[in-house]
């Protein structure tokens, strides 16, 4: 039990995929302009990340390993992720057409979200079991959601303030992200 808790804490705070490992930065900058959108993106990514890390574990463990095809891992994982993303896209389109419209290009772009492939590959590298993989993926997506929502909240506030002209727009957003990253670095050493 402690093991899973540690995985969660580690992926959410200590080894946060966005702010510490710097994976998945495109949606982090792209859909953090509005809190609502950020929450939608966070939900979609959570779904995709958890599902794809589980699926890729299964594919790796029961198909690639017995058939001695581990060299096909990357291409296989991309296939799995693409299918999960397509599936998610259909579900979102059906359940929340507005969110579908708002997420726009970023929804299919989850496919190329490096965090998703990163999680799948790290699962193999760290030799995680089934549950560990699931928790690892879930924790990673929770960490992603956390910083995305925090960042969107910050950006909403920054948008209405009198930022000096040279820092307007993306400049101040990147500075904010950097400072957030520094803050998350503070967790280093809490757990491995």
């Amino acid at each position: 039990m402690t093991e899973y808790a540690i995985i969660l804490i580690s992926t959410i705070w200590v080894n946060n995929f966005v702010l510490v490992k710097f994976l998945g930065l495109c949606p982090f900058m792209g859909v953090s302009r509005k809190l609502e959108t950020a929450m939608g993106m966070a939900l979609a990514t959570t779904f995709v990340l958890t599902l794809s890390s589980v699926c890729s574990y299964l594919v790796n463990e029961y198909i690639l390993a017995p058939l001695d095809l581990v060299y096909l891992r990357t291409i296989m994982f991309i296939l799995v992720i693409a299918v999960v993303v397509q599936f998610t896209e259909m579900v979102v389109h059906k359940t929340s057409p507005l969110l579908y419209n708002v997420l726009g290009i970023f929804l299919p772009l989850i496919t190329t979200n490096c965090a998703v492939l990163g999680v799948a590959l790290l699962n193999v590298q760290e030799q995680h079991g089934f549950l560990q993989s699931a928790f690892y993926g879930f924790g990673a997506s929770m960490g992603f959601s956390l910083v995305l929502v925090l960042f969107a909240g910050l950006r909403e506030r920054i948008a209405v303030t009198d930022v000096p002209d040279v820092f307007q727009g993306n400049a101040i957003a990147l500075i904010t992200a950097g400072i957030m990253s520094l803050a998350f670095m503070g967790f280093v050493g809490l757990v491995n």
Partner: protein
Amino acid sequence: MSILIAVVTLSVIAALFGLLLGYASIKFRVEGDPVVEKIDALLPQTQCGQCSFPGCRPYAEAIASGEAPINLCPPGGETTMLALADLLGVEPVALDDEHDTEPTKTVVVIDEQTCIGCTLCIQACPVDAILGAAKQMHTVIADECTGCNLCIPPCPVDCIHITPVKVEPDTWRWPLPEQNFAAPRA
């Protein structure tokens, strides 16, 4: 031999996934486009056609399908454009220079002295705001008029005039205080 296994495995898995997606696309089929409704709700419903679409709903459909930009609605002005940008999560687009960012609301008035009762304006009005019958004087129901001005071109005697809607103390709006220091940008 191992190449063969790899190819077969990949093909089989890809085929399986394809089947899964095919099933899902039937199961999660989306009927119509609910986004159109939401866009239509934001448009001012003047049905004036100034966006080059025949009415508000066709324009909403065009926006939803990505055929039209969001800045084509002169009666809605900047407010509508910003609301659309917000709804669709796209960058705001500046309105054309010739249109005001905040258009003054207008209604039309029929000059009863000149009106010949031809009913052409009645047929043009998209919201049935003109009252009258053939060879009888016509009049505009000011409360129902959306200010689309579609009745003006068909009038053979040019008896329809545009008047701004009067601002009452109850409908008056406080101005935004002026800021002479670096203004925040939204």
